[in-house]
């Protein structure tokens, strides 16, 4: 394993995490106004009605699959009686199904974005970059999985998964990545780029999943900030005594 390789599998994940976490904090502090889905449904609704849920539900399932595959050690799954080959076929079929839905969804979304005038006009360069990386990550993942589908497939749960977990315990075990098929390696690199891009693109909307809606009362009341009357804040040193 060359020095460049070992650097890649030690430094890259940390750079990604810093860019992700730092980016979210930066966005939250300085760009709450830009934090939105920037929906284009107002321009075109018919295709979006089909494509968007297919893509989103597909990719949520893919995400769940990744989390299970990477963060649940195989000793745990064998402990509950799931054999390696059962796991492999389960992940192969359901994963491919979800992957196909995702690809079909994003293909339709990109077609819509390209052919509908107002939607295309509302596409920024940032969006285009994001689409390229997102599509590359999805396609590379599909290729990696399907080219190693034969037999028991490629068992990433003894190489990639322990490496990733070791990253989070701050002892990156980069030697595990030695011998991982190159398609998987490319998928991981693109995946890291995608994760690092999240806070700086419209993908940030994934961090505003409105779960709290299930628990809050329907009608929200808010008070004008106390101490701020009218449109100005108190002058320093002259704040009202509470």
């Amino acid at each position: 394993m060359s020095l460049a390789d070992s650097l890649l599998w030690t430094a890259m994940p940390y750079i990604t995490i810093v860019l992700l976490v730092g980016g979210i904090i930066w966005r939250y502090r300085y760009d709450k106004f830009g934090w939105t889905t920037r929906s284009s449904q107002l321009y075109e609704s018919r295709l979006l009605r089909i494509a968007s849920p297919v893509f989103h539900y597909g990719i949520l399932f893919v995400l769940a699959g990744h989390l299970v595959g990477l963060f649940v050690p195989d000793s745990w799954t064998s402990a509950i009686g799931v054999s390696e080959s059962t796991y492999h076929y389960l992940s192969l079929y359901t994963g491919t199904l979800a992957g196909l839905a995702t690809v079909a969804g994003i293909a339709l979304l990109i077609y819509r974005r390209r052919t509908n005038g107002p939607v295309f006009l509302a596409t920024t360069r940032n969006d285009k970059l994001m689409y390229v990386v997102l599509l590359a990550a999805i396609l590379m993942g599909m290729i990696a999985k399907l080219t190693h589908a034969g037999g028991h497939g490629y068992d990433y749960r003894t190489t990639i998964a322990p490496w990733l977990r070791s990253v989070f315990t701050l002892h990156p075990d980069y030697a595990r990545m030695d011998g991982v098929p190159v398609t998987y390696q490319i998928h991981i690199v693109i995946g890291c780029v995608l994760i690092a891009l999240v806070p700086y693109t419209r993908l940030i909307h994934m961090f505003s999943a409105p779960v709290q809606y299930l628990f809050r009362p329907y009608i929200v009341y808010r008070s004008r900030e106390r101490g701020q009357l009218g449109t100005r804040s108190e002058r320093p040193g002259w704040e009202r005594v509470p």
Partner: protein
Amino acid sequence: MRVMAQIAMVMNLDKCIGCHTCSVTCKQAWTNRGGVEYVWFNNVETRPGQGYPRRYEDQETWKGGWELNKRGRLKLKGGGRFSKLANIFSNPKLPTIDDYYEPWTYEYANLVDAPLGDDIPVAQPRSLLSGKPFKIEWSANWDDNLGGVSEHGELDPMVAKVREQASEKVRFAFEQTFMFYLPRICEHCLNPSCVASCPSGAMYKRQEDGIVLVDQDQCRGWRMCVTGCPYKKVYFNHRTGKAEKCTLCYPRLEVGLPTVCSETCVGRLRYLGVMLYDADKVLQAASAPDDTDLYEAQLGVFLDPEDPAVRREAERAGIAQDWIDAARRSPVHALISRYKVALPLHPEYRTMPMVWYIPPLSPVVEALTETGFDGEDAGNLFGAIDTLRIPLEYLAELFTAGDTAPVRASLEKLAAMRAAMRPGLLAGDPSGPAPVDEDVARSAGLSGEEMYALYRLLALAKYDERYVIPTAAVGDARRLEESVLPDECSLDYAGGPGMGGSGPYGEGSGASPPMSVENFHVLRDRQTADAPADTGRSRVNLLNWDGRGHPAGLFPAKPEKPGAPDGPGTAPRPPENDDEEER
């Protein structure tokens, strides 16, 4: 009893001439930006007509507002919490731009730039969405003054409802048809379904004055509020990806000024004032079993500020004394609760709307006089109400969920007011207030004094009687730099030129300058710049950002390349802005 205060509006439709001044001034003040070209916080519809967006009243299609479930409890018509989250990736009931209209501009440059030729150059319409030439086929006001009503009249959902009961009442033949204008803003409901629909919790009702607002920092663009509002008065800014709506001009109200639409109304038909209501009763009232009970139920929610017990409770609830005083003088309270001439718009949506309407009496006097009767005699007028050109049934579909009795009662009072006031006014004694015909007043259920007060409010409509608006807090009024009588320098805000200090977080992080100062600069920039959006400013003002590229001032200016053409960003800046740039 949990007393809350709400700033409400009443519009007197009898006086609306459909001039659209309210719409235009509102648009100039609030929605002349990119992304909201198609948005009218205030619009004036001709009824019968489809409205804006088209057929918005057809809730079987758009699923706005609330409905009762099988157990008689309120639920969102567009689906509850789980269904909202399951459909979050694409809203199933969102009006598209075609339901509003595709905004456009004209190629004016062609008029002056076209080369010399045989043909007169024309300014072609161009879509503001796709940038391409296109054919204008609809707009916010396409069926103004019954334009195309013989083709489209059937598409008015209220016409369809009236025809179910009495098909002969609505006719579109030229000689038999009728029309009136209906100005609409956000209803600032007591039970707002848009707020209930917002998954992010970005929409809220202000506790102090009941104004419903969208927190632009918290909105994530899920668009559920657009569906949730049955009046379709929440709009999606397609550039910024955030919801926007009528703010009831809260920066003006807070300092005691009427909204822009009210201020500029040439017919003087808008009334603004405080309503006190019992917040504990709202849910129960909105759940009234019959749609036709909702008008009375909402009246029951309002509290009488003349009642000492109510005033005591209001004080206990922390409502300022000047608000309670304003509630006693409130023209809105008088028209809604005391004289009962104002009616809510579509109470059947169960949102408890707070912009109410006095129904139009249509040209009844003229019509009566033509038939040879005394058009202003009370008896003749009362008899004529059932055969008015504007059918009672149609008004009832708009204002009382189909129950004609409250509409007739309101129109009878308006007719009685004419009959009771006319003899005294014609007698022409200018020394005192005109005498009231007490008998006619009593026939409408009012005393002579009340009738005179109603006449004064509706016919004379003095500015300070139409608008009784308490300021944000009278105790602090002197410190509100935008109040009428400021006692300190208006530039004396934190970080302003008169202040010098920079606050605890350094130069760039001071509080925003007051809205009046900001608006002054924005307006001047807009009026002097060639570009449509605000480009010459140094402070990042996201409200004026059109969503393209990055907002001006977010990044330091690039060094100018020699010989580069002057773009809008390099326009000379007014010297005052340099002060701001330094901080």
